[in-house]
């Protein structure tokens, strides 16, 4: 079995003609950014780092620019997702027509919450903003396919069908095992309720001098900086975090 990353060059080669056709539709190549990411996501199940790099190369942009753009849009997944992405509408019209009960039912049935994926990798669940189907509230999308007028019974049926692999909508391609969530913001350690190891003993982990799990990031910056910045930061540090200045002075390893 090869990994997704190993398969990527072949995929990229296979999609080359299609990519060129997309780029040719626009008067400026950068316009093809969204469609190209859509294309790769359609094949890989998410906007992978390799895809971002490939699109950057194709459009003559830096990967950071592509990443920044991709991160703006909620339909681009930054991490692998489940086979079925269930996006339940939490808009006003759905909410006043019972969406809260529907969402509670989903959470209970799936055992996961907003922006999470089940451990078996089958379901990803998200509560999304108005899906423009308010006349048929409450509604949802399964892999962007609409399901209208939801009832608990329908939910039971569709979850069972997805588990059995008989659901009418095609599953997302799954080239990697998904983690507990697919958004970068949610899977950062701080928002998962875990402070990074280094910051645990600090009073103000967000101040200059905050420590990261892998090393003393802010401290490194201070050490590497020359001149006035160093002096001023050190002065400020001496007031708020004398312990860090101590490490800095005594060269304690990190």
């Amino acid at each position: 079995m090869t990994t997704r990353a190993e398969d990527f060059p072949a995929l990229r080669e296979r999609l080359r003609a299609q990519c060129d056709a997309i780029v040719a539709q626009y008067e400026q190549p950068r316009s093809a950014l969204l469609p190209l990411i859509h294309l790769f996501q359609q094949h890989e199940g998410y906007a992978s780092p390799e895809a971002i790099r490939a699109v950057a190369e194709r459009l003559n942009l830096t990967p950071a620019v592509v990443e920044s753009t991709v991160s703006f849009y909620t339909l681009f997944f930054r991490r692998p997702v489940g086979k079925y992405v269930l996006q339940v509408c939490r808009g006003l019209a759905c909410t006043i027509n019972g969406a809260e009960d529907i969402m509670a039912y989903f959470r209970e049935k799936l055992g996961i919450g907003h922006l999470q994926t089940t451990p078996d990798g089958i379901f990803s669940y998200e509560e999304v903003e108005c899906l423009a189907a308010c006349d048929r509230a409450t509604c949802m999308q399964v892999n962007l396919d609409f399901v209208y007028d939801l009832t608990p019974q329908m939910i039971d049926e569709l979850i069972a069908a997805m588990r059995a692999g008989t659901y009418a909508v095609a599953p997302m391609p799954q080239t990697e095992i998904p983690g507990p969530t697919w958004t970068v913001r949610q899977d950062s350690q701080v928002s998962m309720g875990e402070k990074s190891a280094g910051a645990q003993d600090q009073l103000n982990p967000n101040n200059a001098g905050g420590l990261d799990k892998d090393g003393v990031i802010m401290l490194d910056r201070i050490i590497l900086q020359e001149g006035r910045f160093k002096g001023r930061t050190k002065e400020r540090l001496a007031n708020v975090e004398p312990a860090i200045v101590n490490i800095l002075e005594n060269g304690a390893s990190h």
Partner: protein
Amino acid sequence: MPVVKVLTEGIGEANLRDMHVYRQRGGYKQFERALTAMKPADVLDAADKSGLRGRGGAGFPTGKKWSFLPSNDRPRYLVCNCDEAEPGTFKDHMLLEEAPHLVLEGILLGTYGIGSHHAYMYIRGEFKRGYEIFMQTVEQARQAGFIGKNLFGTGYDIEVTVHRGAGAYICGEETALLNSLEGKRGEPRLKPPFPAVAGLYGMPTVVNNVETLAYLVPILEKGPEWFAAAGTERSKGYKVISISGHVKKPGNYEVPLGIPVRELIEIAGGLRDGRTLMAIQPGGGSSACIFEEHLDLPYDYESLAKAGTMLGSGAMVVMDDTTDFVKAAFNLVRFFAHESCGQCTPCREGGHWLETVLHRFVDGRALHSDIDMLRKVGHQITGINLCPLGDSIEPFLLSVLNRFPEQFEARVVKEAALPA
């Protein structure tokens, strides 16, 4: 009942996605006539005379918008805005999926009307089915010779590119949409320059809503006078109204502008039995509520503006006495906080803080001072942002806070329960 069938003609009866069906019903005749027998200026003139105003939310006169294009030789573009995401609005969704050829003909007419050779169709990322349908529509039209070079032997070329978004409400704002179309983050631009002067790729550009462009077809067919005869003095013509919430028959209903709000609710089947009306949000998530005493208000741009709200995208959410207005306000504020692009501090931070404060109300742990806090923060967000998103956060909250203060006060922690 004053319900009319103009754009909605044939929807639900015939398969309008089929090119043959659409042409049998007179489809693409207006486009052919425009190209072979009319100058672009004649199309603009018809749009202007009809009094058609932008159906996306701002209500700007379409003919006037087109006339702002400078007369130079630079390439110019028409962009059709199908990034429908205003809470409560679902008319473009229907038109895209059920009458795609009508939409395309409208786009082609608009493109010719502004003298452009390239049209872009921006479709909301969530409308995957709509996107697939529209791609087929464009392909059918290309094969029938309505898109491409030298159309009808006139030497006029029109190219249409369909672009799919990827989930961002803010891309419905025209300059954010242009950025998104250019492959950038969907952040609104500073205006001026307006898109008419420097839009897509810095070229003169017109961005029109799906419904606006679709109305060009019947306007050319039946004449601008026919369209202008409907509606009111300044809000002319017809409009598709999306009615949802606590009504018996929610749906899209096409009516002449200016009919009383009461009648619109009756068209949608009226309230559920045994319920009383509490509030109506008349123009999408950005609009302030109107109440029982406004039921005889004519549903048009001016009357709603005078009542302190707006017609917006024509999305009416009806709420009866089962509605929890604290939760409703939290819902919409959370929406705007979630969809803020983050460029302007008042919108980014204010929306977030309003959401946080409202969350305390929803949980029943708000302080009495939080009621003033809601007003203060709401007031401070409004009117100082690049785009209208920031200004959309306050209206609904303020209108329900003024109307139902008891619902908010009921969620305040009793003083006795507070630690001394």
